[in-house]
């Protein structure tokens, strides 16, 4: 769409600007402030420059948390995206079947995150949980509070349970925008199922898939509540992801300086990815509007 240049549009944006500035810039400045100072208590602070940043960037603790985080996000994406595409392809296109599918599939997305944790905590328990009990009955040695591998599997399966529907819904939205004529043309040409997917459905889903991948990356990168409720970051530090580590440091140990430096590094990583996201999506928008 052709847009007019009009500086008065700023007045329409001003409320949003003020509100978000209030809730974003002031807290962020607090973080920056802490990240360059040290304290002996009593609210006496002195300047330490980049000391905390150097400490964080060289700390074993940050590296391992970042490593676990990247592995978690990678695993979750590798499972959820193909699975989501596959389910979206096999869903009914319209009618009451589609409505029922959509409503039931969207349900996990609207459960408070700590309740998601509680559900899986109960479900996977050996004594009272359906999953844990069944596995124990089959003779599988599974205990997510003791065994790091079991804890990882539980957290990953929980995330798949929680968020695959997001990918499904996005792909479904992309698929339902394909006109029937495309399929009829493919049928006349005698295209195989794979060819239909590769040359008609996948290109149409490209835009929404990009959104899905990046939303899932960001949200899995910030995950806190669900693994915290299920495993508390344990056993040991096995499922201590970046946010869990950060909260431990800031609120548990009250190491405000390092925690602030940690926050900023963390935020910068997410910001970098979101910049890529934004560039890709706006480029696609521009292409679509040509």
């Amino acid at each position, binding site marked *: *769409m052709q*847009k*007019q*240049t*009009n*500086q008065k*549009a700023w007045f*329409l*944006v001003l*409320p*949003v*600007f003020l*509100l*978000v500035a*209030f809730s974003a810039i002031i*807290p962020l400045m*607090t973080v920056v402030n802490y990240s360059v100072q040290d304290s002996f208590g009593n609210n006496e602070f002195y300047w330490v420059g980049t000391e905390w940043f150097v400490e964080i960037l060289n700390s074993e603790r940050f590296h391992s948390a970042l490593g676990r985080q990247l592995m978690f996000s990678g695993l979750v994406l590798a499972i959820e995206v193909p699975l989501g595409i596959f*389910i979206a392809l*096999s869903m009914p296109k319209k009618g009451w079947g589609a409505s029922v*599918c*959509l*409503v*039931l*599939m969207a349900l996990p997305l*609207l*459960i*408070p*995150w*700590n*309740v998601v944790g*509680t*559900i899986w905590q*109960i*479900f996977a328990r050996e004594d*009272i949980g*359906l999953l844990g009990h069944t596995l124990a009955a089959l003779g599988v040695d599974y205990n997510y509070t003791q065994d790091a591998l079991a804890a990882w599997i539980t957290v990953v399966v929980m995330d798949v349970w929680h968020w*695959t*529907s*997001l990918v*499904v*819904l996005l792909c479904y939205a992309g698929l*339902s*925008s394909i006109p029937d004529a495309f399929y009829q043309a493919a049928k006349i040409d005698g295209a195989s*199922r794979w060819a239909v997917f590769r040359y008609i459905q996948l290109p149409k889903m490209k*835009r*929404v898939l990009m*959104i899905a991948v990046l939303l899932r990356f960001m949200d899995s990168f*910030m995950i*806190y*509540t669900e693994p915290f409720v299920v495993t508390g970051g344990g056993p040991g530090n096995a499922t201590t992801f970046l*946010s869990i580590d*950060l909260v431990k440091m800031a609120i548990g140990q009250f190491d405000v300086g390092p*925690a602030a430096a940690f*926050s900023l590094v*963390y*935020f910068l990583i*997410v*910001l970098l990815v*979101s*910049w890529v996201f934004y560039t890709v999506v706006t480029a696609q928008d521009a292409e679509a509007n040509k």
Partner: protein
Amino acid sequence: MIKNIRFTPIFYIIFLMLPIYWLLTMSLKTNAEILGGFSLWPANPTLANFKTILTDASWYSGYINSTIYVVLNTIISLAVALPAAYAFSRYRFLGDKHLFFWLLSNRMAPPAVFALPFFQLYSSIGLFDTHIAVALAHTLFNVPLAVWILEGFMSGVPKEIDETAEIDGYSFPTFFTRIFMPLIGSGIGVAAFFCFMFSWVELLIARTLTSIDAKPIAAVMTRTVSASGMDWGVLAAAGILTIVPGAIVIWFVRNHIAKGFALGRV
């Protein structure tokens, strides 16, 4: 092959429903039955756990608190996001692209980064433990999202409508509320749904900003887990009750939900 593929959604939905079913059966059992032995369904279904929650003020006030700040947040977010989304979809202005990206970057800010600074900010201005504090804090990620979704829907409305309305002598506020907003009604519904959803499911910030008077249900639940030694039945019942509002809201937006998740960009 093509026939078999039809069953995939059914398997997937069974996978989704099993844990929820398990929570439901547990909420209908007594604690003695839960810990006494393993059974696939409750032998003597009881509503005692739900009764505990609905008659105990420390439990049900959590639901009331959550609902109040979620509704406040949805109203605030939509009220500021509507004009802004219109500006972004119709006009070019100084710094528009940078501003849009900056807004979005806040959607991507890890809540863990903001928990402590928010606590200090709202304590210092005397809003700690109020509903409005949580509602304002949640605008951090809901306003950018609402702006983005609404902008997507608004860009789908042809500009000629704006121009025709101007020629017909409508003032901007009248045009916006009487003509334009009904046109993007489904977009507003979807944006409201998303504000509701993300505010309802968020725990970290809501818990950090409240202690007693505005404590959300999610935080009430975590306290119970750690303090009173696993009252599984009540915990499960509380969980079931947090799912209900979401299920109701989904039903109303079911036809637009997919488009909304694509941020209005399909």
